[in-house]
């Protein structure tokens, strides 16, 4: 099956800093999503981005499908950005099952 690797595994940021999270995948995809799991355990859908660039407030994401990676940018980080960020993909030969990466644990300190 398709492999999904996220980096870095852990990230500590000071409030106000910018950061980039990376997701590499091993095969062609029909879908790629970024999720944020907050410290209370809720999984929040950030972006549905099989290709191209999207922005939502301080967050933006870019997927370069031909090179098999996606980037999530967090600008002017806030303590509420803390949590785990997951990348998940659907391979082109899949019925729609999402394959999740292991996640990036982000801690934003005041």
């Amino acid at each position, binding site marked *: 099956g398709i492999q999904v690797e996220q980096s870095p595994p852990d990230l500590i940021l000071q409030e106000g800093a910018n950061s980039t999270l990376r997701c590499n995948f091993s095969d062609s995809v029909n879908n790629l999503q970024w999720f944020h799991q907050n410290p209370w355990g809720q999984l929040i859908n950030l972006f549905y981005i099989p290709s191209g660039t999207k922005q939502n407030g301080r967050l933006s994401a870019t997927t370069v499908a031909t090179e098999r990676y996606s980037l999530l940018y967090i600008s002017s980080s806030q303590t509420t950005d803390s949590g785990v960020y997951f990348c998940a993909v659907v391979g082109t030969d899949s*019925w729609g099952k999402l394959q999740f990466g292991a996640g990036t644990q982000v801690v934003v300190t005041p």
Partner: protein
Amino acid sequence: NAGVTQTPKFRVLKTGQSMTLLCAQDMNHEYMYWYRQDPGMGLRLIHYSVGEGTTAKGEVPDGYNVSRLKKQNFLLGLESAAPSQTSVYFCASSYVAGGRNTGELFFGEGSRLTVL
């Protein structure tokens, strides 16, 4: 719209007891899923459904049963709970576009189950 709603949010069971987790979605999505999340294991797919009246096994189906009698509801049952089923359970749904499952998942808030 409520999106995806799971009940109950928390439950404690004794080994051997049975219970059912209910997932309801009001987005008219065709696909529904049950995942479990364990520390260090990420999200693993238990069962899924491609439409009303259909179910299929995921990665870790043993010890669980599911039913999808109505399009908006997907039930996860534990017939005889075991401590290994202590976990956080997430329900999700996705929609079809262009005749194909988009795989764009919308998650419920999770249900924390402890089996003693």
